[in-house]
């Protein structure tokens, strides 16, 4: 019997190659989107799972009730003594470790390197699973002079020699001896590093070892099997209060939640957001749904043609269940052919998708049995759902009626079909609207004035003290090249001023205890000019006015002036007390966006600090950029033994909106695919309808209808459906995009034009699809369609 089903399924498949092709292709594209997005989501969900104790590992983080910094008052870092205390006080804590970021200038046999790694307490390898290829995990971090390298860094430093026991010298003349080797840190780890040095080798850590007031390290704990994290968390406030003078609230984050659920201050590196995972999952399901709708629509349409066959089979003695099985086996055939095509398409497209999401999905997911089982399961369910409607419908007819031709009333069928088409277009239009809104917001971010110049500005990140000492000579040397227009130093860059202080006591504040949190950065003399910041009142810092450095001088932004309760016109000359001590306001600069468009502009003050800085900014001529960069790195190498890391400010700026840009690209691509699938479905249906109506078209033509008349007749009905889909899509898309835009402090308005554009686009695509088929139908010779009578 099964053989018979499959045979018939194949024959039907071959009999209508056009429909079968549309069916398989549409479903394959849908499945392939689904596979790729599922692979991406599995990857995102797999973060930190490679750690054997992942399910019992937690990160301790805290909240500072009064300290809102960069939009949140939660902080990922903790005081250094926390590890020891938590270990001692809680028997349910099996292991604990502390890690911190480290950046080292190192040299091996006279060759200099600048590498990023971590410091970690000796128990690091007991908490995290980074198997050592060489060395003993128990003792690898025991001595302050030990260092564990990743395989790649070892190769970079020592080539093919065995690195174990070899010596690395840091720029402060400390020596590290290689005590272990590990594989590369997996991409799906929420922190990454090229080497691990013992915490005891880091002066800052050692200094703060017993200091509860400073936070700067990440503390992880592993609970004993069966221990309850919520119970432990409940005991934390009391525990902390015996050690810490601050009123910070400590709590636990599950290790595996960090990557998608933690967006707080001082993260090791920027995390993803579960919101985007939901969004992508939504898109994946939507595209799959579109493909399934296609399948259902075409299958239902075709089932009309097959009512006679069904009647005949019934007369011969087929039971309804057998007929349903037959229809379902056909949908299974199509679905699994589509799946194989989809797997093939995914193989082709995954590298592209990898680039899009910047994740190394590779093809490994396709080889994982669990993942494949899930994909097969989903395909099976999709086939079951999309095949069942035509199966149940076609087999419900009375054999007598079915034999008579079955053509009778197709009302309910065409209603459902219409409903599905409306749904398909609604979904496509939603995606189109989202794409347009996201695109507009992205280009708004790109083009809107941030209040400072970011074109052709090269920024050098400075870690070597030598450069600070020789900055005046360096500046002179660099400015000899006419391609370098200006040079300025600063503690922070204008696109991300991430230091905050508190102003306490200022002119006009009635309460001497009153505090104003304010962002602050030290800048060199030429900073505001180089970044073309507009000075509204007063003057810039000047090297000629010695009181700027000796007696404290401040520049404020407009927001700060307002927050202090001052007037811009009278602010200059007023006194205040901040980080750099008591001082006077010498000027007011126009507000510039110093964080991101997600945040409102905050109060900011700048003070003159020409000799301590972390960045050198260079304004370059737009021509010969690569050569200028070469010149800069060469010049810098005359002053420092270590390579200087540099980047262009507009690249850094783009990097700030990486998530949004990626979202825009992904939504864009999937919108195109969704539209394509919807178009395929419509194409199939119009072809089908045109075929159904051949006789009518023939009659109308004989009676004098022109091609235009016929095209209009066939197109009108479908265009109505698209219009209805539009009406449904608009409020949903409007709501979704308002939600998205709510995260931006500076954003576009969703204008009606966007909806009209999306609607127009959908209509145009539908029209193009429909008219191609209807023109074909309209051009057919009516004699052919009427002759058969």
């Amino acid at each position, binding site marked *: 019997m099964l053989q018979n089903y499959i045979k018939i399924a194949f024959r039907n498949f071959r009999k209508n190659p056009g429909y079968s092709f549309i069916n398989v292709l549409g479903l394959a594209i849908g499945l392939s989107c689904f596979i790729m997005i599922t692979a991406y989501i599995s990857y995102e969900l797999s973060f930190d799972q490679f750690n054997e104790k992942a399910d019992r590992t937690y990160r301790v983080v805290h909240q500072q009730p009064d300290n809102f910094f960069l939009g949140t008052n939660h902080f990922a870092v903790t005081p250094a003594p926390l590890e020891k205390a938590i270990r001692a006080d809680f028997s349910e804590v099996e292991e604990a470790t502390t890690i911190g970021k480290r950046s080292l200038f190192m040299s091996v046999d006279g060759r200099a390197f600048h590498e990023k790694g971590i410091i970690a307490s000796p128990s690091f390898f007991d908490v995290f699973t980074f198997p050592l290829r060489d060395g003993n995990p128990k003792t690898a971090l025991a001595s302050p002079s030990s260092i564990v390298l990743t395989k790649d860094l070892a190769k970079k430093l020592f080539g093919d020699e065995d690195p174990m026991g070899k010596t690395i010298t840091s720029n402060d003349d400390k020596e590290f001896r290689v005590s272990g080797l590990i594989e590369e840190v997996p991409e799906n780890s929420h922190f990454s590093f090229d080497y691990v040095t013992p915490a005891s080798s880091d002066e800052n850590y050692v200094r703060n070892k017993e200091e509860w007031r400073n936070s700067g390290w990440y503390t992880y704990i592993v609970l004993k099997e069966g221990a309850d994290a919520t119970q432990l968390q409940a005991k934390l406030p009391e525990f902390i209060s015996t050690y810490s003078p601050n009123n910070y609230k400590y709590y636990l984050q599950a290790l595996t939640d960090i990557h998608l659920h933690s967006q707080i201050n001082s993260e090791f590196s920027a995390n993803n957001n579960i919101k985007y995972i939901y969004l992508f999952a939504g898109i994946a399901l939507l595209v799959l749904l579109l493909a399934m709708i296609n399948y259902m629509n075409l299958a239902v349409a075709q089932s009309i043609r097959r009512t006679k066959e069904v009647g005949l089979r019934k007369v011969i003695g087929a039971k309804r269940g057998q007929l349903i099985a037959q229809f379902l086996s056909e949908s299974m055939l199509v679905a699994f052919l589509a799946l194989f095509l989809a797997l093939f398409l995914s193989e082709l497209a995954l590298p592209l998708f990898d680039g899009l999401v910047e994740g190394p999905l590779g093809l490994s997911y396709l080889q994982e049995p669990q993942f494949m089982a899930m994909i097969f399961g989903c395909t099976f369910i999709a086939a079951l759902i999309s095949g069942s409607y035509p199966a149940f419908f076609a087999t419900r007819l009375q054999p007598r009626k079915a034999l008579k031709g079955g053509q009778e009333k197709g009302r309910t069928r065409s209603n459902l079909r219409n409903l599905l088409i409306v749904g398909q277009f609604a979904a496509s239009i939603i995606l189109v609207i989202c794409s347009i809104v996201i695109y507009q917001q992205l280009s708004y971010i790109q083009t809107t004035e941030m209040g400072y110049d970011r074109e052709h500005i090269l920024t050098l990140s400075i870690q070597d003290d030598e450069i600070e000492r020789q900055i005046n000579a360096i500046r002179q040397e660099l400015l000899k090249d006419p391609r370098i227009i200006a040079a300025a130093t600063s503690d922070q860059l204008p696109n991300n001023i991430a230091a905050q202080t508190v102003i306490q006591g200022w002119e006009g504040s009635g309460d001497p205890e009153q505090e104003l949190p304010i962002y602050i950065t030290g800048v060199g003399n030429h900073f505001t000019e180089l970044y073309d910041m507009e000075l509204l009142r007063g003057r810039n810092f000047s090297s000629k006015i010695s009181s700027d450095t000796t007696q404290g001088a401040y520049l404020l932004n407009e927001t700060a002036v307002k927050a202090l309760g001052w007037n811009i016109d009278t602010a200059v000359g007023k006194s205040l007390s901040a980080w750099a001590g008591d001082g006077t306001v010498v000027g007011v600069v126009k507000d510039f966006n110093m964080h991101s468009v997600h945040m409102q502009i905050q109060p900011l003050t700048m003070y003159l600090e020409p000799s301590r800085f972390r960045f050198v900014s260079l304004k370059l001529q737009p021509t010969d950029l690569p050569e200028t960069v070469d010149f800069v790195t060469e010049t810098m190498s005359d002053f420092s033994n270590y390579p200087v890391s540099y980047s262009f400010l507009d690249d850094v700026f783009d990097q700030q909106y990486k998530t949004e840009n990626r979202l825009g690209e992904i939504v864009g691509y999937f919108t195109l695919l969704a539209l394509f699938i919807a178009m395929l479905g419509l194409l199939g249906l119009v072809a089908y309808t045109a075929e159904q109506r051949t006789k009518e078209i023939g009659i109308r033509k004989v009676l004098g209808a022109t091609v235009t008349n016929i095209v209009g007749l066939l197109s009108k009905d479908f265009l109505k459906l698209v219009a209805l889909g539009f009406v449904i899509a608009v409020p949903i898309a409007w709501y979704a995009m308002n939600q998205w835009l709510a995260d931006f402090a500076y954003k576009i308005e969703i204008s009606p034009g966007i909806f009209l554009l999306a609607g127009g686009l959908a209509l145009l695509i539908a029209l193009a699809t429909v008219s191609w088929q209807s023109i074909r139908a309209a051009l057919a010779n009516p004699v052919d369609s009427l002759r058969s*009578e």
Partner: protein
Amino acid sequence: MINTKNLKKIYITEDVETTALNNVNLEIEAGEFCAIMGPSGCGKSTLLNIMGLLDNPSEGEYHFMGEEISDKSERDRAQLRKGNIGFVFQSFNLIDELTVFENVELPLLYLGVSTSERKEKVETALDRMNMMHRRNHFPQQLSGGQQQRVAIARATVADAKLILADEPTGNLDSDHGDEVMKLLAELNEKGTTIVMVTHSPHDADYARRVIHLFDGHVVTENMQEGFHV
């Protein structure tokens, strides 16, 4: 009205070439009632389609109302067809989704006749066919004879000068068939030219002239003296 010279129609498919019509020379005057007879596949319907400007001959000349049309484009033929030629088919070919009234209205719609004039003309045509009481019914609610009467109303509503009927009684029982033939004869008496393809000698008796086709060419043409009325 109709004048053909050496009319030839060849159908070519992948593996066969079929000559449907071969050197057909015909002349049909305005006001004639002409029946075309012959066995299945002799080319009757092909001839009718060419006469009705639905199809072009492969070779030969065809003059319709004085115009040479064998080289005319589809668009021009459609233009000439509108309002001049009415069709009646064996299987009625009414559009199922449209009511009786809407079916009959269709040719006027394509001619661009105004709403009020359409209403008047459709009502006259339906009245003549005695179908006014069924104006809001759908084709499936009518008997075969009634459907054919609607089809004839549709063929005549635009005052066609020529009616081409392809086995108009083929799907009807004899009573209804006679009824339809009488209607056609009445139309002919009022001046409409009628060309009818039929298998039935009984129906052919209504015509003044019978043309016999065999294997694509005219075998005989008889004038009938004592034809039915």
